[in-house]
């Protein structure tokens, strides 16, 4: 974070001036009083999304941490129209909302002039696994909707069971680090690339530890005129067993080790939007997380090597994709942003 702020850059178009954006608490889309854990990454991501765009919005939320903690009768935190259907179908539900709006506008029954955006939200559970079919179908059909996945790398709402996004080696409730099997033995799925392969107008991977990058991606997603998919790493102090206060620092370490690269695929062009000046070793990411404690123990060096090799392989593949699709640009001078 910059130590000084250039206060004269307020008026520049296209920049995101937090001092101008920061709104009062009663304008928050998600009201406080929700039951998410202290330091949970989910609402950091959601608040950053709602700070980046100001469209009227309908939200379709999959079952999971966010849904259960924010829509829990008799309380609801949502100040926008919101629907929770079931675990695996928020994409299908959002498709229905999108279609209904199209039909109602065609019939002259929906007179709201402003475009009403449709946002589908799910955790990695409801997106990578049980929700993958509905997500794939919705993206292929070309609905105008944005899908935001908050990836906390497991089924956290039900106590921390493994998902296909859980990293190799991670100890979870269903892949505990035991005497014979040291945690999850499968590499995690790369859903962002799977969604890019649907050839939708916009796909991106972002992190709440880099708000300006995330905000730009949110805006591109909502303005791309078709289906868009965003995947954001979301720290879960409860099940990652991390220090609550360090949540965003840990998230940023995932980015700096290239474990969680920040990139976008915009109409077929892959662009890596953040290249760390110094690529940190993956042990920095594994450290300070209780779920990886056994990985760093003596005798498990093979696990660290495997993880590092896979991170490097995927990072290099991403850079190659960027080069191959014309995503490498000339270096622009770095601008100070609020």
């Amino acid at each position, binding site marked *: 974070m910059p130590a000084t702020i250039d206060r004269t850059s307020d008026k520049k178009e296209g920049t995101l001036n937090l001092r101008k954006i920061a709104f009062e608490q009663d304008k928050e889309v998600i009201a406080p009083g*929700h039951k998410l854990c202290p330091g949970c990454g989910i609402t950091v991501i959601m608040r950053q999304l709602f700070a980046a765009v100001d469209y009227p919005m309908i939200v379709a939320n999959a079952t999971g941490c966010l849904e259960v903690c924010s829509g829990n009768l008799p309380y609801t935190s949502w100040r926008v129209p919101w629907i929770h259907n079931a675990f695996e179908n928020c994409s299908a539900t959002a498709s229905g909302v999108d279609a209904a709006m199209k039909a109602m506008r065609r019939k002259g029954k929906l007179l709201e002039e402003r475009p009403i955006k449709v946002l589908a939200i799910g955790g990695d559970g409801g997106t990578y696994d049980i929700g993958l079919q509905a997500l794939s179908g919705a993206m292929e059909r070309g609905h105008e909707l944005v899908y935001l996945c908050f990836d906390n790398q497991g089924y956290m709402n039900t106590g921390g069971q493994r998902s296909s996004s859980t990293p190799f080696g991670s100890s979870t409730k269903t892949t505990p680090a035991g005497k014979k099997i040291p945690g999850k033995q499968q590499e995690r799925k790369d859903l962002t690339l799977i969604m890019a392969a649907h050839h939708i107008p916009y796909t991106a991977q972002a992190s709440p530890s880099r708000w300006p990058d995330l905000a730009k991606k949110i805006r591109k997603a909502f303005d791309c005129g078709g289906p868009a998919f965003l995947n954001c790493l979301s720290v879960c102090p409860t099940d990652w067993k991390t220090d609550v206060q360090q949540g965003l620092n840990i998230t940023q370490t995932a980015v700096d080790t290239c474990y969680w690269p920040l990139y976008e695929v915009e109409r077929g062009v892959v662009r890596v939007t953040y290249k760390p000046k110094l690529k940190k070793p993956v042990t920095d990411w594994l450290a300070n997380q209780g779920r990886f404690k056994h990985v760093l123990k003596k005798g498990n060096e093979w696990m660290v090597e495997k993880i590092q090799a896979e991170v490097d392989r995927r990072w290099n593949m991403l850079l190659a994709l960027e080069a191959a699709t014309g995503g490498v640009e000339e270096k622009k001078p770095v601008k100070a942003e609020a």
Partner: protein
Amino acid sequence: MPSWREMPIGGLGVMAVPLAPGNSVEYDTGSWSSQVLVFHEGICIHCMQCWIVCPDSTILAKDGKVIGIDHGHCKDCGLCVEACPTNPNSLEFVDAADALVGATDTVKNIKYSVSAQFAIMEKPEKPARAPKPDAPASA
């Protein structure tokens, strides 16, 4: 609690008490922690880095300035403390017990119950802080 005849059908949250949208503000999450977040108005540069990382919308902003903390909902996670770039930090934790006893004579107002609260507290001695190790590079 309303009877089945009185509630809206379908268990919906609609613009009518008791299921109004955004009514979670009535739910106290501020008492979840035994610590209290202190905001030093004099040091704050109003960069809003704390505002953009708070998971609970408890950094209160108005007209481009941070004006206080909503202690009725702050869960004291500390993400804002980590995000704050000033040195010394504009945000720090104190134990709730110390805050209540009145460790300082400029404590204005602390409540743990629900309706809107913000407190601005100044501790007389601003502690010197060690330089922050390895601040993440900017975007």
